């Protein structure tokens, strides 16, 4: 607040009419930026926002640590005999769960941002239309990566040992980030569709809780009733967590990777155009 009053009371330097005129004349217009360049610029905007408000990284640091510790020690003894054995099974899954849950913040930031004046400017620019939304997702991809690194570090401290080595772990995280980037188009859609931040949160929870819990993240689906197995075995989250688990264990689960990427592609194809339609009509 002290900065605000300070700048308020301080005399503003006068506008220099000559340098202004020179600027206006010298302004030759460069060609429009490519779709890639515009998207990266919006991604840079997202990173700048993190730089100015680092507290927003709380949800990709503290929350994931809590998830790892909580579920490992809560279920470990009962489900796998000991937390140490359970973490070997759980970590890739809880990684998937946490990151997929974090994707919902994309919807919240789109929703709070879209009403601001700056969006009028973005929308009146001659740029590739989806680049604004892609920028959010690129910034969020960075957040997903941070969350993954944090969780893997905590996991390894309490005993997780990935047999896939660095290559397996990096591929697993990459697959997870790609899936989350694609899946987030659901949230950009809801962010534009719903009226308030609260309703975005509400809808996100309604979707994410069943989607992440009804999967093979915590337990083997074989113990579930048949009708539930039918759902769980075909859930994109099950495919993704199997793929990440096996990649980190040093295998190459081609089928599960294909399923995960297929679901990711479908999500972009369905929710991408809906998001853009809403964005253009807003």
């Amino acid at each position: 607040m002290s900065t605000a009053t300070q700048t308020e009371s301080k005399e503003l330097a006068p506008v220099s009419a000559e340098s202004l005129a020179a600027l206006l004349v010298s302004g030759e217009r460069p060609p429009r930026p490519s779709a890639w360049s515009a998207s990266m610029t919006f991604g840079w905007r997202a990173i700048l926002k993190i730089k100015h408000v680092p507290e927003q990284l709380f949800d990709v640091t503290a929350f994931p640590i809590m998830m790892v510790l909580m579920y490992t020690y809560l279920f470990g003894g009962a489900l796998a005999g000991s937390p140490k054995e359970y973490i070997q099974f759980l970590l890739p899954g809880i990684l998937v769960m946490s990151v997929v849950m974090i994707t919902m913040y994309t919807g919240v930031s789109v929703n709070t941002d879209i009403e601001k004046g700056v969006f009028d400017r973005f929308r009146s620019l001659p740029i590739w239309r989806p680049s604004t939304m892609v920028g959010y997702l690129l910034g969020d991809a960075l957040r997903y990566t941070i969350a993954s690194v944090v969780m893997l570090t905590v996991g390894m401290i309490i005993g997780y040992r990935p047999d896939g080595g660095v290559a397996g772990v990096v591929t697993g995280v990459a697959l997870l980030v790609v899936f989350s980037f694609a899946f987030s188009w659901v949230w950009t859609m809801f962010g534009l569709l719903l009226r308030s931040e609260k309703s975005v949160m509400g809808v996100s929870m309604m979707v994410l809780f069943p989607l992440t819990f009804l999967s093979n993240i915590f337990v083997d689906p074989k113990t579930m009733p048949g009708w539930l197995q039918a759902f769980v075995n075909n859930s994109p989250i099950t495919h993704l967590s199997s793929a990440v688990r096996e990649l980190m264990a040093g295998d190459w689960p081609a089928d599960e990777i294909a399923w995960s990427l297929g679901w990711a592609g479908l999500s972009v194809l369905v929710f991408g155009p809906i998001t853009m339609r809403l964005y253009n009509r807003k």
Partner: protein
Amino acid sequence: MSTQTTSGLAIETAGLVKTFGETRAVDGVDLAVPAGMVYGVLGPNGAGKTTTVKMLATLLRPDGGEAHVFGHDVVREADEVRGRVSLTGQYASVDEDLTGTENLVLLGRLLGHGKPAARQRAAQLLEAFGLTDAAGKQVKNYSGGMRRRIDIAASILNTPDLLFLDEPTTGLDPRSRNQVWDIVRAVVAQGTTVLLTTQYLDEADQLASRIAVIDRGKVIAEGTKGELKASVGAGSVHLRLREATQRPEAERVLRTTLDADVQLESDPVALTARVGSGAANGQGAAEKAARALAELARTGITVDNFSLGQPSLDEVFLALTGHDTHDAHDARDHAGKDDKDEVAA
């Protein structure tokens, strides 16, 4: 600059309509804005000014009618239009979380500049707008005047052919308002057309060459400032005498030579007379006033100070709408709707 189309018009609209539910926010607006000038769109809150600007800037799709910007249709050729216009909204159209420099570099990159060019242009703009000291501060910590400046700086980053200024001085103190006016004059002097919406009559008077008066979604008058004023008629002569004792005599002289009402001001040496409606904007008025002055001098009355004032745009608005700007505002309040609501709908 390649701003001239064959018609020489920056904006041309015909029967432009935008409805929000039951409300016809813009109800058949026809505009013809010549390139290279400040064109004022004057009207009270909720008259449909912002909605019109948003349609012209491709942010809202019209529900009826047509609009062309430099000959390009705002719906079918939206991208062409976007390449040539820039918009400064009622609230700052910059990212409040970013610094002044970051905002301008971001926009420079989005307009196609390389990184070094975007940085250089940002620094030059901040310098020209007197914001160098605040370059590294987040815009949310800027004062109202500084926000306006960074906002306009962002809008002219690529020297647009047409700049929309939507109520650029609403909420500013008089000093900052004058500074914004200076910027607008500098921008238009370099060949950019400016469409200025305002609810301040003196602002339109100060800046605009032509004015459209808009009320309840319709253009109710259009023309040069002079034409608008002449259509209302009458200016007034203000006099200050040296001797208060001469005032009754001066009043008599003025009444006979001007054939008009004379008003005695509370200041004992001042008086004001309405000059009859001259056809060509006060031309007849000036002649009559000169004759009255000569007559006063002949009668031996010393005039210390003299001015011939045009009717204010307030009077113009009252004469055109039958209600003043304040009434219109109240009516909107009762309807529970303002410009901002329309936009959010």
